[in-house]
Each structure stands twice: as C-alpha cells, then as structure tokens.
C-alpha cells in the first residue's frame, strides 16, 4: 500500500488508457506522458498496462506502507526517499515506513510514480485510468487526497536501483525556436479550408500554452486561425493530438481527457509519438509545430518503439528489469 500524505486534488491514478468505448462517449484518459509510464513499467518488470500515480508538477509526499520497488519517470522533481536524493528517470526500493518527497517539477510537468505490481485499484470498463468527468476508474474516480491508501499489486521485484537515459536525450527533436518544444504535426481533414495566413501561422508561430489548459486540452495563445470561408461541421470522433481552430478563437490541442467528439474544424493532428513532449511543456511554455508526412510520422512511431525495445534488451543484458 501507498499512503498519500499531500497534496490534495492534483494527482490521479492513470494507466495507458481505456480503449474501445469511444463509440459510447468514453475517451481514453490515461497518462499525459505515455512514454514515461511505459518506461517506468519496463524498469519494474510490470505489464505495460499497469497503473501508476500521475503527479502534475506539484510537490507530493507519499509513505510506503510496505517494502516496495518503485520508479519515478517524467518530470524532474528533485525527489528524495527518506532524505536521499533520487536521480530522475529512476527505479529504487523503499522500505516500509519510508517517505518519498517530490518537489515542484523543475524540468517537465507530469511525473509518473509507478510501483512493482502496479497500483491495483479495480479496473472499470477494462482500464484503471481515472475518468474525472464520469467519476469512475482510478481511485474512486477522483483526484487523490491526503489519507488515500492505494493498493499495490503482487510482485517479486527486488531492491535494484538504476535509471535509464532521459527521453529528450534518447529521442532528440531539434527545433528552430530554441525555447519552444517542437512537435510533429500531420495536416488534418480541414487543413485546406483554413486561410493561407492561418496555415502559415500554424507552422511559423511559437505558440504559448495558456493558463486555461488542463488534461482535457491545451489552449494556445497566438494568432487567431481563420477559415478561408465559414464551414458548418458535423460532430465527429476525435483523438488526443487534434488541433482545433474554433471560429474566431485560439487553437486548442485535445489531450488525454478530451471529449470524444466535437464539431470544430481541425487544422492538424500532433502525432501520437510526440504527445509526451507536449505533456512535458509547462503552462506558459511554447510549442512549435513541424509539418511532417505520414511516412515521417510512422518513422517517429518506430523510433519510439525502438527506444523502448532497446531499454528492454539492455535491462535484460544487465540482469535488471523483471529480474531485479
């Protein structure tokens, strides 16, 4: 068991997502940084769908009520275990009674705290991801509060301590805008319906993530994206990564908790292998969109899968991972 000591109302239990129910309006939810979750589960020898605690950049204190192998990935929070500083992207071992302290994220935003055996809350509709709007999944369908005790699944993982290379080093994606996070974007169905100005602005702007942003979507500050002519859209299914250009409004990137359908025109879609980069860009930070082809998007997907495969192979070579 893990006991939450603080904070109140920020962290939630998430897994890789709830799929197959979009047709009844249930979206995927799940970790904002799916790569961080997969990495943590790999380091612990967990199943890929094991659930973890997602911490959105705020300080957090938890107490381990039993000896537990755990991993911390995603944002750099300057974490300490019983006062001992932990490197980022790290797996370690807590003795019963020890406290883990995460500070404010000093690089990135979302941290993943995973445990060997996974957070063993009951799955709902096939997943342990928290559906905040529907109040189900995760831990009682809500954000975590002090006093919450989260069950931990069975595991034979031992006291290994090691880390893996941070993703921005393993999967660099340089950009022209030094301070902006670059992500690759495929044009969406209504791309051509936007004005020339809008399409130029999409690629050229350093978009700032506004404070009116959350797990459902990020509102971007920058030029208004105008259509060449008004179009009446029909409601259709959406996936995380879709960049909408509401008429006369600022663009919105739909993310993990997005509604499953909508009717605003779409100008582009951030490719799924780059969504973790958005998740780790803070509010007030900047995003730059780089147009890519479908083949380039596939290559990005393959590069990410290779990165994970490489970690899996090297963990085995070093006698770590599941056996550790």
């Amino acid at each position, binding site marked *: 068991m893990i006991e939450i000591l603080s904070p109140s109302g920020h962290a939630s239990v998430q897994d890789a997502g709830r799929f197959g129910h979009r047709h009844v309006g249930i979206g995927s939810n799940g970790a904002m940084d799916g790569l961080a979750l997969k990495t943590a589960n790999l380091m612990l020898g967990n199943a890929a769908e094991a659930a973890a605690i997602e911490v959105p950049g705020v300080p957090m204190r938890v107490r381990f009520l039993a000896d537990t192998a755990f991993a911390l990935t995603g944002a750099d929070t300057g974490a300490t275990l019983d006062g001992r500083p932990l490197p980022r992207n*790290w797996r370690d071992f807590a003795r019963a009674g020890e406290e883990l302290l995460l500070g404010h994220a000093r690089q990135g935003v979302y941290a993943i705290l995973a445990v060997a055996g996974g957070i063993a809350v009951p799955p709902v509709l096939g997943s342990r991801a928290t559906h905040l709007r529907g109040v189900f999944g995760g831990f009682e369908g809500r954000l975590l509060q002090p006093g919450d005790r989260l069950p931990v699944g069975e595991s034979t993982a031992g006291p290994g301590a090691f880390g893996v290379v941070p993703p921005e080093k*393993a999967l660099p994606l340089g950009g022209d805008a030094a301070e902006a996070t670059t992500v690759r974007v495929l044009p969406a169905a209504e791309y051509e319906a936007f004005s020339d100005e809008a399409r130029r602005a999409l690629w050229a702007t350093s978009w700032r993530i506004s404070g009116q942003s959350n797990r459902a979507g990020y509102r971007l500050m920058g030029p208004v994206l105008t259509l060449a002519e008004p179009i009446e859209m029909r409601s259709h299914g959406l996936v995380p990564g879709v960049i909408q250009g509401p008429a006369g409004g600022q663009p919105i990137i739909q993310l993990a908790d997005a509604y499953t359908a909508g009717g605003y025109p779409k100008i582009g879609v951030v490719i799924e292998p780059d969504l973790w980069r958005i998740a780790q860009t803070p509010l007030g930070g900047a995003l730059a969109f780089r147009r890519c082809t479908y083949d380039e998007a596939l290559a990005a997907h393959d590069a990410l899968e290779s990165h994970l495969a490489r970690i899996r192979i*090297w963990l085995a070579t070093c006698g770590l991972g599941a056996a550790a």
Partner: protein
Amino acid sequence: MSAAPDTIRIALGAAPATDAFGLAVRLDGAAVLETVQAEGPGLFRALETPFTPAAPVRAGWVIGFLARGPVRLPVLMPCDGWVLAAAPDGARVGHGTPLFRILRAREGIIP
C-alpha cells in the same frame, strides 16, 4: 594552519602537483581524500545537477552513473563527505577508471 578542528581548508586549482582531476588538495588532517573507481566498463554519465564541493553528500547517495546502452547503473558515494571533481560526462571507462575525487568526512562532521 590553526583551523578549528572541524574546518577543512581546500585549495583547488593549478598547483605544484595536480592529480588526474586537476586538483591539488591540501588537507589539515580533518578529512581523507579518496577516489571512486568504475566497477566495470561503460560510459560515465554525470548527474543532471552534479554535487558541488560545497554540498555534503551522504554514504549511499547516487553521485553519477555508469551507462550501458540506455541503462544507467548508479555510482554510489562510499561514505559521508564531499564530491570534489568528476570524470568528464560521456567518458568511456573501464574497471578501475577513476570516476570521482571525494573527501571522506571525519566521523560526525556531517550531522
């Protein structure tokens, strides 16, 4: 030197005799200079925020990494003390290669 018993004076920089880390350390007997060596082959990787000589480090803390592919094995501080210098980030090392020059603190010096 008439330093108080729990004060360590360190002079860093070019001096008549410098070690592999470019340090010439004069001690007043309050601490012991040691080297942490690599336990095997790999690439040495520094911490993202390395410990500076001013920051006390406890035994068992991670002070750097030995990288094998994407995996980073911990290099642990062997005793309470201070990290004075490290091998260059990315250096290819083998068993026994010096990774850190540390000062072992005298018993009780770090609360």
